[in-house]
C-alpha cells in the first residue's frame, strides 16, 4: 500500500479531514503505476493538484513511478509555495528519476 498524505482541499479524499492531524489515504498499486494513477484511484481531479508533489520526500511529478512501500505527499494547486523552476507535473518526471 502507498501512504498518501493529503493537504488543503485534497484532505477530503482521505478518511480524516482535520487540518491539525495527518490526512492519510492508503492505495494499493500495481507495477508500472505512477503518481497520476494513484491520484486517479483516489478520485482527485488532476487540475486540483499543484506542482508540489513529494514522493518519499523527493520532488516528483504525475509520471513518477510508485511502489507499494512509498510515502506520497500531495498539495493542491492553491498551496504551491516553492519557487518557479518547477516543471510541468503532467509532462516531466522531474529532476530526479
Amino acid at each position, binding site marked *: 500500500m502507498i501512504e498518501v498524505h493529503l493537504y488543503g482541499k485534497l484532505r477530503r479524499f482521505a478518511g480524516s479531514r482535520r*487540518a*491539525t*492531524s495527518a490526512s492519510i489515504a492508503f492505495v494499493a498499486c500495481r507495477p508500472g503505476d505512477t503518481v497520476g494513477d494513484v491520484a486517479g484511484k483516489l478520485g482527485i481531479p488532476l487540475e486540483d493538484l499543484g506542482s508540489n508533489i513529494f514522493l518519499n*520526500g523527493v*520532488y516528483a511529478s504525475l509520471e513518477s513511478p510508485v511502489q507499494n512501500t512509498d510515502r506520497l505527499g500531495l498539495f493542491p494547486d492553491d498551496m504551491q*509555495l516553492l*519557487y518557479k523552476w518547477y516543471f510541468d507535473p503532467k509532462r516531466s518526471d*522531474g529532476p*530526479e528519476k
Partner: protein
Amino acid sequence: MDRILRINMTDRSASFEPMPKQYENRAGRWLTSSIIHDEVPATCHPLGPNNKLVFSPGIVTGTSSPTSSRISVGGKSPLTGGIKEANAGTGWGRRLARLGIRAVIIEGRADGFWLLKITKNGASFETADAWTGKKLSEVYPKLFERSGGHKAVDICSIGIAGEHRMPAAGICFNDQNARPTRYAGRGGLGAVMGSKGLKMIVVDDTGSDDVPVANKEVFNGGRKNMAAALTEHAITKPKGALNSYGTAVLVNIINEAGALPTRNFRSGRFEGAAKIAGEAIFEGNKERTGSELYNHACSPGCIIACSNTWHRPDGSEHTSCVEYESAWALGANCGIDNLDQVAELNLLCNEYGLDTIEIGGALAVAMEGGLAAFGDGKRAIELVHEIGRATPLGKILGAGAVATGKVFGVSRVPHVKGQNMPAYEPRAIKGIGMTYAVSTMGADHTSGYTIAPEMLGVSGKLDPLNPDKAELARNFQYATAFIDTTGHCLFIAFAILDIASGFEGMVEECNGVLGTKWTAEDVARIGKEILDLELDFNHRAGFTKLDDRLPEFMLYEPLPPHNVVWDIADSEIDQVFGQ
C-alpha cells in the same frame, strides 16, 4: 527634495544634508549598505560609538506601487560582526519617503534613552527613560495616543532586549492596526539602536507632499503590471496560498520534503508539523472565532496580505503574526506542537523586541544543553520571560544560539557567521545551504531564496551544484538585493519571477520614480554592486572564505528522513562569489 537626516546621539543634534551625488538613485538596501560601507569602520565594535544605524525606505516606497512599504535598516551586526540589512513592512518608511528623507543616519552614543521625533519641520528629542523596561504592547498604544494617533504617526522602537543590547534584539515597527509586531528582526540591529541610547523614533508626515514621480506614465504602466502579476499569481492573489494560509503554509510542504529542521536540526521531519501549520491556524481560528479569517496586510498598499492572527479559545486575539519562520523556530525546532504555546512564545518575542528565529534557535540549543526537554513549551515560555527580565540566563539566551551553545557546551549549533539558520535544512535542500554559506548576512534565507525544486537534491542522483547552480545562487542574491532596494516585499518574487510583465513592471516603476532607463540588466548590475559593497565590508571586517562554511556537525551527522549530510565541496561554495 531628497535629503539625508543625520542624527548625532552624543549631543542630540540633527541636520539635513542634500543627497550626495554618488548616492543618486540609491534607496533601501542599496543605500543602507552604501552608507555603512563608506562611513563605518569595518573593524569597529558593533555596540561602540563608531557603528552607525541607517534607515532607508525603498525607491518606490510611499508611492501607489503595490506591496512596497518596506523599510531597510542597516548597520554592523553584533550577532555576526559583519554588515547587516534587515527590512520590515510598515507604514513608517512611507512617511519618511513622503517627507523626502531618503535615509536617517544614527551615530554617536547618548546616556540614557531618548525618543526621536521626525516631522516636516525637522527632528526633536525628548527623554524616553519612562518608556523603558516595558512590554511593547504597553508602550505603543500610549505613545500613539500621545502623538496624535495612528493616522498621524508610525512608531519604530526597540524593546527590553534592545535596551540591554542583546544580539538577538530586533527593531519593531507597528503594522496597519498599530500593533507592535513588524520587525527588522535579524542580526541584532535592536542592540545597535539600544547602544546609541535611542529607544524609539516617531515619524509624523503631516503636511508632507506625495513622493515625486519623474515620469508618471512610465510609473503607472509599471505599477499596473506589478499589480496584475500579484493579483493573478496563485501564490500572491487574493485568497491564494499566502492570503489564506500565510507563510506558515510552508510548514507542511517543507516537512513533506523532509527539510523542516526539527529539535535543533536533528531531523528533517516533525511529527507534530500539521498542528502548527498554516492550515491548522486557519482551521483553529475558524473554530474559535466562528468565521473564516483571511489574512491582512501588514503595511499600506499591500495586495498580497499574508499576515495572520491567532486567536485564544474565547475568540480574542492572541498574537500576530505567526509566520512560517516563527511557527518553525518556536515550534518544530523546539519540538513544540502546541499552537497556543507557539503563539505565546511569538507574542513574548514581540513584547520584548526579539528576533523569533534567533530566539527559537537559542531555545533549541538550550534544550540541547539540558535547560529544558524538547517539546516543553511551558519551560520555553519561562525561559523567554528570563530574557524579558534581563536576568543573566535571559541575557545568555538573548545573545543568540552561538553564545548559548558556548555557555552550555553544545556542539550542534546550526549557524553561519554567528546567525542561527532559518527554517530550511541545508542538508536536504542544498541550494539554500549555498545561500546560507555565502550570504553577507550570515545564515539567511531571504538573501537568495534558492528553494527551487531542482535544488531539492536529496537522493544524490542529481548534483545540484554544478557551476550553473553556483551561478543561479549568485543571480538569486543579486535579484534579491535589487528587490530589497525597491522597497517591495520579497514575496513579489513569487509572482514576478513567473510572470515576465510583472518583472518588467518592477523595473518600470523604478524608472518612473527616478527618471532612469534601467533594464533587466541593470537589476543584475545593481544587485552585484550591492553585494560587492557588502562583501568588501565583511572582508575588511576580517571575514574570509573560511567563514563561508556550514557548521561541522552537518558534515558528519546524516539528517533523517533522507539520511544525507552536507556534501558540497568548499571549492564549489567558493565559486558563488569567486573568492
